[in-house]
């Protein structure tokens, strides 16, 4: 192979081979996920507020607050308690990904995951494997939401992790919100058989809804 032929081939590749440019949506996606890392990094409320203020500047911070307030009013059906749970399940989800503490019991076998919870919780969460439907079960762990220990079931869809938090419905429970979206995270909630389910993921809304439909319609074990 002489030098000349190499030069020719290089020219051919440079002229003809496709250079794939990143779509603008990818930049946004990455910025959003880095923002989440930032938000999770500045953990407790006051310092997060401080970081926001620092990042956005005072004025922007106020504008943001105003928009948020209007948004909450607009979301008239959503009571404050539900709102708090949404924030908690998203935090739980992000934390599970950040500290590489996704599961205490790692198994795709529902008959391994379900018994693991017994003795750790005062209820037994329904555990289903959805591998055949494209949402393999990865494992389970304990988490703490709404002032009580809850079961967290971990599923995977392509590269997206889905956390499903499960705990019994409170006696005086209000109706659950259907779905919400924060900082690029989607949350969907439902009640079934005395349990409440909160699924959270950075997966798109459509696939997350499909996933929750699957969980609802699968025969319970």
């Amino acid at each position, binding site marked *: *192979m002489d030098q000349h*032929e*190499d030069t*020719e*081939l*290089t020219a*051919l*590749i*440079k*002229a*003809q*081979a*496709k*250079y*794939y*440019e*990143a*779509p603008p*949506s*990818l*930049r946004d*996606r*990455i*910025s959003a*996920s*880095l923002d989440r*890392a*930032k938000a999770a*990094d*500045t953990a407790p409320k006051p310092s997060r507020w401080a*970081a926001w203020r620092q990042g956005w500047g005072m004025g922007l911070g106020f504008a943001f607050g105003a928009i948020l307030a209007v948004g909450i009013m607009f979301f008239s059906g959503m009571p404050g308690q539900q709102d708090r749970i949404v924030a908690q399940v998203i935090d739980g989800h992000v934390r599970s990904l950040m500290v590489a503490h996704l599961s205490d019991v790692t198994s795709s076998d529902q008959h391994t995951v379900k018994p693991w919870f017994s003795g750790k919780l005062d209820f037994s969460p329904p555990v289903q494997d959805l591998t055949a439907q494209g949402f393999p079960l990865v494992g389970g762990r304990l988490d703490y939401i709404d002032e009580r220990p809850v079961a967290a079931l971990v599923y995977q869809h*392509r*590269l*997206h992790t889905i956390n499903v938090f499960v705990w019994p419905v409170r006696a005086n429970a209000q109706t659950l919100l259907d779905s919400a979206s924060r900082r690029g995270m989607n949350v969907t909630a439902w009640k079934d058989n005395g349990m409440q389910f909160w699924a959270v993921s950075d997966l798109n809304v459509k696939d997350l809804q499909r996933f929750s439909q699957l969980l609802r319609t699968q025969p319970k074990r």
Partner: protein
Amino acid sequence: MTEQIRQFEAAALTHLNAAYNLARWLVRDEHVAQDMVQEAFLRALKYYGSLRGSDMRPWLLSIVRNTCYTWLQSNKRGDEALEFDEDRDSSAYEAAFDRAENNPEALLLHKQESARVNLAIESLPPPFREVLVLRELEDLSYEEIAVVMSIPAGTVMSRLARARAMLRTALLRPLSEE
């Protein structure tokens, strides 16, 4: 730490196109490539502290590349030999290349066909595809490619030579065989 994330974001996003181009060539699917880049960037953030002033681009690309290879290994398709064997993988091409070498005009004949060039590059096993993309499309130096692929610079040169030979062969293959 938050300041560090901001710094990382500003620096890393300037290499977004390079990262995506490499991932897109390696996994050959735009959606998977986007997932790969996002995952790689988050992983890179974790180890950003250990970078300490070395050049960011090859370092970041090596993380993108490793992320892609992990995906390729767990999504192995039947038609793709990923367990890479330098001798086995290149000998078939070399035999064909010996025949092709006597026919220099053939290269020129197909020069116009960009689709054909893309297909030919895509048909190469990942390590060869990768070295071509890094060298010809990203203009990385041998030393930088060595960092990205975690191989000695000497190996980069020989792999690049083989990749070029294989590409020539692939370019000469009639379309009907593909």
